[in-house]
């Protein structure tokens, strides 16, 4: 049976169909979940896609975290369910307190829209399980607020727990410690600024997002929350 991926559509999200297309092209089932829905319909994986949820009013992700569906997403993640936030989805996860730190405005004063080179730093997460540490992958980034920041204590904890999963090669936005993606301590909640779904077909200029999406579509892996896996 195909893995069912629920993609949350907030008012202002704009990458949900890209994620759905990429998931389907890899043999998964994709369902769009409206943010006002009281249920996740029993999906196996939840993706918070890119865009401008609730117009990014107040701060990116600040209002999205109060969307009714988020209560279910939090419970799903607490039960070990895989949750991935891409770009604006990453901002929502930090605002919701599901991932530490925050995404501030890019250091270079510019909206960045380019292909980024990334180094795989940890393969112990629901999104990177199928990769190899040290792999260099190419995926597009497209954001104004992607400059990851956190307190010194949080950074120390992220490093010692191997929670940084992707780093930029050639930092495009000022992110602390070149961080492009992190996971939670359970390794089932992942946030990243690059867009794997836009690197899922030759015509898009890169296929490097495919192994990440495949990792997500791998049969439900409670092992990702394995206490022995660091």
């Amino acid at each position, binding site marked *: 049976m195909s893995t069912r991926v629920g993609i949350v559509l907030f008012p202002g999200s704009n990458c949900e169909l890209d994620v759905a297309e990429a998931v389907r092209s890899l043999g998964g089932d994709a369902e769009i979940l409206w943010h006002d829905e009281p249920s996740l319909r029993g999906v196996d994986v939840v993706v918070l896609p890119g865009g401008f949820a609730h117009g990014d009013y107040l*701060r990116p992700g600040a209002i999205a975290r109060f969307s009714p569906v988020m209560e279910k997403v939090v419970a799903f993640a607490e039960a070990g369910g895989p949750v991935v936030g891409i770009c604006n989805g990453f901002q929502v996860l930090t605002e919701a307190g599901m991932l530490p730190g*925050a995404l501030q*405005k890019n*250091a270079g*004063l510019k909206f960045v829209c380019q292909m980024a080179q990334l180094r795989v730093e940890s393969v112990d997460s629901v999104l990177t399980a199928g990769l190899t540490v040290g792999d260099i992958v190419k995926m597009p980034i497209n954001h104004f607020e992607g*400059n990851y*920041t956190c307190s010194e204590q949080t950074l120390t904890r992220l490093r010692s727990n191997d929670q940084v999963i992707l780093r930029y090669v050639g930092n495009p936005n*000022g992110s602390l410690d070149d961080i492009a993606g992190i996971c939670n301590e359970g390794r089932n909640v992942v946030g990243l600024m690059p867009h794997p779904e836009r690197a899922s077909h030759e015509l898009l200029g890169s296929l490097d997002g495919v192994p990440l999406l495949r990792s997500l579509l791998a049969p439900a892996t409670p092992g990702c929350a394995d206490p022995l896996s660091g």
Partner: protein
Amino acid sequence: MRYAVRVEVRLRDGIADPEGATIERSLPALGFDGVSEVRVGKSIRFVLDADSEESALGEVDDLCRRFLTNPVIEDATISIEAAEVLQ
């Protein structure tokens, strides 16, 4: 009681403020010299019904921490005064 509340949200020191930096860089071109440390924030105003100034302050403080600011990157200053009764 009704209280007029003003919350000023500022980026914390060390947090990138591209808007402030851009304004600062454009000032000399307009002949305004000697302006530095430009920071851009947000001012949020609202009216709150509360039993006392103390309880109003407590509620606004909670509102700031949980919603109006992201404590990782922002601080807030709160001012409260009794609102004029209009009716």
